[in-house]
């Protein structure tokens, strides 16, 4: 049975049921009013209760009717699957019927009918009307509008029936396909819930591209544009540093080729920087001129005797240190000065053994005195 057929008939059915119900309620009401003269309060209450009951009954009947409608559709569907060869005949019949019955569009009659029903029930008109319409629309549409199931319509068509369908898809065909689709819908919904419903909401509507001027609107007017002397306030150095790091990390992806990997490693300081510079890491050393490394005799000057075994020894020490590439200038100076302290401590011993002459002594003493002051 075509959906449209049922829909166009539905209002009449509902109308009939409710007219019946209404008659019955009116009868009951008239009975009540006739006997109301005798006992006011009780009957009034009774009346109200009965009215409520009647309206409830009416609603129940309506619900049952709607349910039977849906059941009807299900059974009619399965028959449809097998009865495909008789498409053309049924379709033509239905086309004729459609044309005969509906002068106004089906939806309009539906809405009017629902309105009438709601009014006749009484109570919350708008709510009942919307409930009715919702139920009907739910059954008819499911989750997809007619337009976007073009795909499924086309799929269901066999190629040898192309001439029939080519003449334009009647509402009957569309509805039948929608009903077929409904049977498949529960299974598909689980997997494609979001994309499916979303695509249903965006049919091929012709979107008019209206140009919105991004910067053309009136400004808020809070800040004045030409103040150049403003600052951003106190600077949170560490915070800003951390934020910049985070920004960089947000665009750091796993490297997609070897060059990117080498870039990452270079930034992590794991490999040499290009172009390869032998002195990478020796920045401190660059600041010191080479003569400071080599000419260490100047550290000997204040304290070392000019002749004798001590001088020999210290000169050898200086030569050795000058050839040492691994120590910094400070370290070398430390070495030399350590020797100075050492010889100062051992002064007596040196004098006894004769390593130090009296003349040289003066320097050491002078130095001692200086250091004491």
């Amino acid at each position, binding site marked *: 049975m075509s959906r449209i057929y049922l829909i166009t008939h539905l209002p009449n059915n509902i109308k009939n049921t409710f007219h019946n119900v209404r008659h019955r309620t009116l009868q009951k009401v008239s009975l009540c009013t006739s006997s109301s003269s005798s006992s006011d309060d009780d009957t009034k209450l009774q009346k109200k209760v009965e009215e409520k009951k009647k309206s409830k009954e009416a609603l129940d009947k309506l619900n049952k009717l709607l349910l039977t409608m849906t059941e009807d559709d299900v059974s009619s569907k399965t028959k449809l699957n097998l009865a495909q060869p008789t498409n053309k005949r049924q379709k033509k019949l239905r086309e004729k019927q459609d044309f005969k019955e509906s002068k106004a569009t089906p939806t309009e009659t539906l809405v009017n009918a629902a309105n009438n029903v709601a009014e006749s029930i009484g109570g919350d008109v708008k709510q009942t009307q919307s409930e009715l319409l919702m139920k009907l629309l739910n059954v008819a549409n499911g989750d997809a509008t007619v337009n976007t199931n073009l795909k499924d319509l086309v799929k269901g068509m066999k190629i040898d029936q192309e001439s029939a369908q080519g003449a334009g898809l009647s509402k009957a065909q569309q509805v039948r396909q929608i009903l077929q689709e409904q049977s498949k819908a529960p299974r598909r919904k689980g997997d494609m819930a979001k*994309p499916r419903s*979303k695509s249903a909401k965006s049919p091929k509507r012709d979107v008019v591209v209206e140009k919105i*001027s991004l*910067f053309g609107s009136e400004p808020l007017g809070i800040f004045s544009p030409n103040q150049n002397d403003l600052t951003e*306030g106190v600077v949170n150095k560490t915070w800003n540093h951390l934020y910049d*790091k985070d920004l960089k990390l947000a665009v750091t992806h796993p490297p997609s080729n070897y060059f990117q990997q080498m870039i990452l490693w270079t930034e*992590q300081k794991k490999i040499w920087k290009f172009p390869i510079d032998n002195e990478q890491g020796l920045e401190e050393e660059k600041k010191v001129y080479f003569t400071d490394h080599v000419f260490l005799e100047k550290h000997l000057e204040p304290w070392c005797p000019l002749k004798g075994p001590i001088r020999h020894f210290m000169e050898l020490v200086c030569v050795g240190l000058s050839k040492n590439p691994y120590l910094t200038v400070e370290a070398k100076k430390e070495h030399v000065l350590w020797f100075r302290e050492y010889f100062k401590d051992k002064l007596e011993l040196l004098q006894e053994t004769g390593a130090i002459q009296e003349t040289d002594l003066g320097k050491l003493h002078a130095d001692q005195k200086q250091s004491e002051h």
Partner: protein
Amino acid sequence: MMNISKTLLRRGLPQANITSNILLSTATIDDKIEIPKRIPRGPTDILRALESTVGRDPTAAHYKYHDDPYLIPLSSSGKRIFAMAQEAGRKAAHWVRQEHADLFQHREADPVIEAFVPPMVYTEESEVAVADLEKLIEMRQVVDSAVVYRVLKEKNVEVAQELEQGLLELLCYQNCEDGVSEEFVEERWFRQASKGKEFVKKTWKDGDLAEQIFSKMTPKTPESYCAIIQGMSKYRQMDSAVQLFEEAQKSNIPLNTNTYNSLIQSVNMIKENFDMRWSLLADFLTQMKNSNLKPNLGTLNAILYALSFMGNPKRAKEYVLQTLAEFKNLGIEPSLGSWYYVILTFCKERGPVSTILHDIINHLEDKEHQIRDLKDTHFFVTAMEMARHHLNDVALARRIDKLLNYGDNYNLIGDSYKESVYFRHYFALLCDNLPLEEFMNDVYFKLVPHIYVPEVGIMAEVLNQVDVNGAVEYIPKLWSDLIVFDQSHRENLVDCILNTMVNNEQLVTPELTESFAKIAWDIYSRSINEEEGRVHRLNLTGDLLGKILILLVRQKDFEKACKVMDRLDKNQQTIAGVPKIEALALFVDLCIEEKVPSRGIDCIQYCTDCGFPEANSLAVRLHKELNLDEVFLERLTKVVGDVFSTS
């Protein structure tokens, strides 16, 4: 010069004179040699120059996977597992180094590579100095720096104000906990950003070290107020943040722009409805102006972020445009993050369609963009989503894609989740709107499987399109893709594929029939194969088995068809549903061809069990074609009743 030389030649002067004349003339023209200034090159510039010559090869797997056909993952879960496994190896190495730090004390490299040295462990008893604290703050080690700070305080070592301020800022930024180490790139890449657009959960640790340091700090400097307020806003502790803000205002302590930005961002948490939120926001802005603070990109993004979910879409849109104009006048160029918020505000799901995306793309096209705000990475995903759902516009999507692939913009794709969502929308949009052949050749075969692996939903749409277009030649490839992507157990996809194969009988060539039969058999054997013990196993319904039967019968593969029939017959209780009668009819036809009436009778028995009325006509046909002898005829009569007397 040439004229001079020609005239000289004509005069017949000796060579030397000519050359000297030429030299003289040249010397006068270029007597200054300009040596261009040396361009200082950074340490990675050469590498970057070389890298820019290498593009992305869509036919190869990503660089991080081993280039071995057996070790290249092709499903989305496989890719994730392989990459994380590699990272797990790195983590294991880190762990070994930490456990056995005494074995890793050699320093072979000169200069020393800090990254390879085992990390220092700081406990309560460690000997620490202020320099250690400095280094730890620099290296962003939050927990260690907290420990070191406590030790220093216990020993009453003097910690400079600046250093304490730095520590406070670190703690506020990280909420007193360590983040994922910078070394673990894969983990960051695959970290599914599960927080939604508006995560309003408060995660700030109340009373933890940051607050302690702040409260003990005397005097309370503006920097410290800024730091603590920013930290609290970032982790959504709004009550305290606002309280501290008011305190600062009362004591006339000047704050900075970023603090105001963080407060503006959280305006939607402080107030409930649109008007109150907007008035609070405007208040903040006026206060900023009165304190003579210069707004920056952060301010713009904060305002737009707040507007994007403030409520009252119509007025929000107006304010958005006004804000954009305002900041344009201030000379602040919006970043991609700002456009992301604009799209969010204008293209709401349940709202009117807005074509602002066109204008935005016009503005952004053909330019290289840098990351300037953390939200920039959301732009491309959302733009593609809107192009698909909101506008359904292929040309626009193509433009967005072109912008993404321009220069280095691909870096702004964010992480793997955003990338997959971006491609998902792109695919679905093109699948719906492009003619199938163009889609398959230009998009599908290029991007799948190395750049993007379609999800189940997208595969279903592709299969739908193939079905609609009757393009059955793609089915074998799509089926093998389904197996590779680990989606072959999904019932809806199997259903779709079987439908396509069954329904388009007229379009198949003999090779295709054969491959369809193979696919059907593959589906069947996968479903009954219990060895692997997988969690997902496809349970074939009667209908699907029927379709498999049809395909096998078309290929005239009697043996396999019998197996399927047997399965149908024997497992009637466990199999849901029954096959269509066409399937069974075709099977009976095949039995007639192969002249095996016993099978035919079994099938007819099954038909009657299922309650098909056509069983009778099938029986009649069987008898007519094969001229059954008595035994078979008797069996048949038992099954269907006496229909043969009429024929």
